[in-house]
């Protein structure tokens, strides 16, 4: 009786918390009066787009604010003490003992200079929770529970010596060592491939359940949160939009914004049969320097005026294929045919016309635009370079391109830092269009964007294709994006093409083994999806 009462008691009670951040010589609100409650042993999903304040709120639950931020109002009461009123020293006693944090990128959050085991037990050791030998033994036990390979030895390794998925599991083990009351998971699987994500999700879920630990699970991925959380809280612009039990939230979201989040994955393009081939990759091998082969005997056909999506995990050779097509990485074997004509392998040997007809758009618009150039310079440079347009025509043409990407002429003198993420990516698309290409290679162009912004970019790309008859090579690891935009699909794995075909053929059985694994690993909205997948795996 006592335990059950204890289990349902309130662990953390955040009331009307407000946080401000300092930038551009002024304080700006980040969190505007949010309430949040967690019971013992409960998992709360915190969901929202980037900039919604999820991470800030998650850290605030530990009483932590990042440098340049401050609490302005409200209280965070943990077992009766208000964390906002504690000194740094007192909070340090709670951090790493009662609270643990699991960061988004495990590769960056582990110190490269120390061995994993030392980092795992560091907080418990320095808080004198137990003797070193005992803590090491416990850590190995946790490694076992997290299903890490060689749990006895993996702790002697340095972070760079293990894979991303293993690091993420090690970090969860690290968070568990002090047997904390509350763990904050800040997008713990966002940086992982889908096939790796499944296992990490499963281990996190089982260990949290087994140890009866309360958790805040922060993510932007609805399907993921549906698997993990008992309750979901939706945030936007630093305010709570809606809170409800997971099942109820998924079945009947009340607020418009929540519904729009749910509806994003709805674009479905009907694939069209091909009417000719614009680009042909024949038996291409490629490697970086004298390193191992990154591409092995690649054959891909790109249909004219259609979209071919190249899907695969990181390291499968998707981006390398793009580099081989553009000539940035000359293939060691094989050839690239553009409209039936062989393209010179090296970039420097291609004519201006060859260059003009294939353009690229990159994943990160932040790093692919010169931060000191205005939109006019960025979009205008290909106009001058390929078409020799100057003078009045130049500005007119830039404005025309801006209209094509649904931005008005007021943007023409802005710098990249004055644009939002989605607007930046649109400018990158306009820059590619300025060359009037026949083929655009889009390398993970929507991966860094929020769901709703992604939808806008995908619709824009579809419209442009319809109007201008451009062909796309669309490189992505996200199956939902593929469904939204592709006519044909190429599945790549470890530098090999697994299969190529029309979207409907690829997505319907029978599948080669790898495609099957890839497709089944994509999280679904159904809260029972993870359980179902794990069961079916056990059967195999």
């Amino acid at each position, binding site marked *: 009786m006592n335990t059950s009462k204890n289990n349902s008691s309130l662990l953390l009670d955040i009331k009307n918390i407000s946080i401000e951040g300092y930038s551009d010589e002024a304080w700006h609100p980040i969190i505007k009066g949010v309430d949040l409650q967690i019971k013992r042993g409960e998992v709360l999903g915190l969901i929202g787009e980037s900039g919604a304040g999820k991470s800030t709120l998650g850290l605030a639950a530990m009483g932590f604010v990042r440098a340049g931020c401050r609490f302005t109002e409200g209280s965070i009461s943990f077992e009766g003490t208000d964390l906002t009123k504690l000194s740094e020293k007192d909070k340090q006693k709670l951090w790493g003992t009662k609270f643990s944090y699991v960061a988004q990128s495990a590769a960056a959050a582990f110190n*490269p200079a120390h061995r994993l085991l030392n980092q795992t037990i560091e907080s418990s050791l320095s808080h004198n929770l137990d003797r070193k030998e005992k803590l090491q033994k416990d850590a190995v036990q946790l490694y076992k529970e997290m299903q890490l390979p060689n749990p006895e030895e993996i702790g002697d390794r340095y972070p*760079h010596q293990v894979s991303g998925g293993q690091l993420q599991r090690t970090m969860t083990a690290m968070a568990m060592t002090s047997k904390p009351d509350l763990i904050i998971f800040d997008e713990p699987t966002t940086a992982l491939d889908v096939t790796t994500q499944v296992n990490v999700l499963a281990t996190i879920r089982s260990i949290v359940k087994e140890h009866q630990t309360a958790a805040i699970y922060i993510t932007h991925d609805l399907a993921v949160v549906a698997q993990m959380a008992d309750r979901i809280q939706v945030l936007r612009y630093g305010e709570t939009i809606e809170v409800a039990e997971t099942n109820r939230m998924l079945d009947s979201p009340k607020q418009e914004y929540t519904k729009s989040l749910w509806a994003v994955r709805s674009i479905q393009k009907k694939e069209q049969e091909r009417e000719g081939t614009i680009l042909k990759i024949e038996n291409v091998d490629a490697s970086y320097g004298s390193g191992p082969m990154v591409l092995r005997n690649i054959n891909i056909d790109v249909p004219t005026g259609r979209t071919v999506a190249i899907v695969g995990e990181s390291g499968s050779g998707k981006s390398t294929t793009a580099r081989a097509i553009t000539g940035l990485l000359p293939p060691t074997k094989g050839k690239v045919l553009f409209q039936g004509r062989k393209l010179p392998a090296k970039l420097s040997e291609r004519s201006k016309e060859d260059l003009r007809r294939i353009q690229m758009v990159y994943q990160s618009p932040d790093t692919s635009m010169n931060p000191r150039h205005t939109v006019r310079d960025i979009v205008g440079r290909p106009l001058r370079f390929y078409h020799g347009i100057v003078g009045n025509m130049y500005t007119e043409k830039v404005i025309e391109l801006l209209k094509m990407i649904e931005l008005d002429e007021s943007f023409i003198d802005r710098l990249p830092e004055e644009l939002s993420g989605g607007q930046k990516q649109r400018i990158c698309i306009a820059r590619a269009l300025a060359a009037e290409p026949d083929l655009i290679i889009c390398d993970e162009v929507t991966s860094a964007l929020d769901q709703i912004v992604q939808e806008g970019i995908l619709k824009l790309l579809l419209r442009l294709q319809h109007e201008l008859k451009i062909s796309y090579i669309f490189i992505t690891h996200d199956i939902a994006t593929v469904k939204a935009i592709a006519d044909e699909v190429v599945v790549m794995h470890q530098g090999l093409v697994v299969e190529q075909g029309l979207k409907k053929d690829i997505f319907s059985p029978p599948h080669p083994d790898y495609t099957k694994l890839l497709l089944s690993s994509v999280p679904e909205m159904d809260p029972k999806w993870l359980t179902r997948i794990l069961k079916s795996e056990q059967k195999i």
Partner: protein
Amino acid sequence: MHPITTTLIKRIGLGIVSLFFVTLIIFSSVNLLPGDFVESVLGQTRTEETVKVFRAELGLDKPYHVRYVNWLTSALQGDLGSTFSGRNASYANQPQQSTARTVSSLLQPRLFNTFFLAAMTAVIAIPLSLILGITAALYRNSFYDRTVNASALTAISMPEFFVAYVLIIFLASINQFFPSLSNVTSSTPLLERIYLSILPALTLTLVTVAHMMRMTRASIINLLASPYIEMARLKGMSRTKVIIKHALPNAWAPIANIIAFNLAYLIVGVVVVEVVFVYPGIGQLMVDSVIKRDIPVVQGCALVFAVTYILLNLIADVISIVTNPRLLYPK
């Protein structure tokens, strides 16, 4: 073979190659110096014949490339040749009676003095700048941080001889704590040697601490924005532990580089300080030899400087490797 061994071998190989180029540069630039030793020693009364004989004895009658090869091969065997100026023109006709000293015998005591002063300075300056740098990073933007930064910058902005004279005024003249002359000899006992060398060592400390301290501070602060630093804080580590245990181990490479750079400076660039304190170091020797056009000694000094630079940079490279587990323990 362990990758660190291959890297080391590569670096040492590169060091040898650069040393070879340095010898070329040293030889050609020293021989391009204006003035001729023989003519200046023999003076107005020289006859063509004596000049010729004297040249032949010094080996100056041979073409440049032959002299270079001779110098290089004997240097490789540890023989840096004989000084010009130890000879006397009257011996020109009886070379077998030459009293010329070898360059090595001239260099050795000077080199020892220079290394001694450099080591003494390093023992004071390196721990001092590390401690100042780490504490400045720990209490960054505080009054302490600003004071340390400002005083270090002031010290480095003043010319070395000025710093030296200021120290002499305060520590040797007004308060007679230390001697203002550091004329050590090879027979000076160790404690006395230390006592005599304190003022030059302090001067050199003042002019080198700023670099090392600011680099230490900057490399640590650079890392403080890393996610693993935030992680360490969220694990409840104290500020001191975060800096010492999590930031510093990743900051060694740039710090080691700047320390190596300053150590090299302590050996090759301290002639001004040596002159002020009349300290018999290698810098003075080199300047004197240039004035006397004593080519073998100048070449010998330059070679020692080059080897020092290359060795210290090699050590800095090794430190960057062994403090980086990514290089030390490959996948």
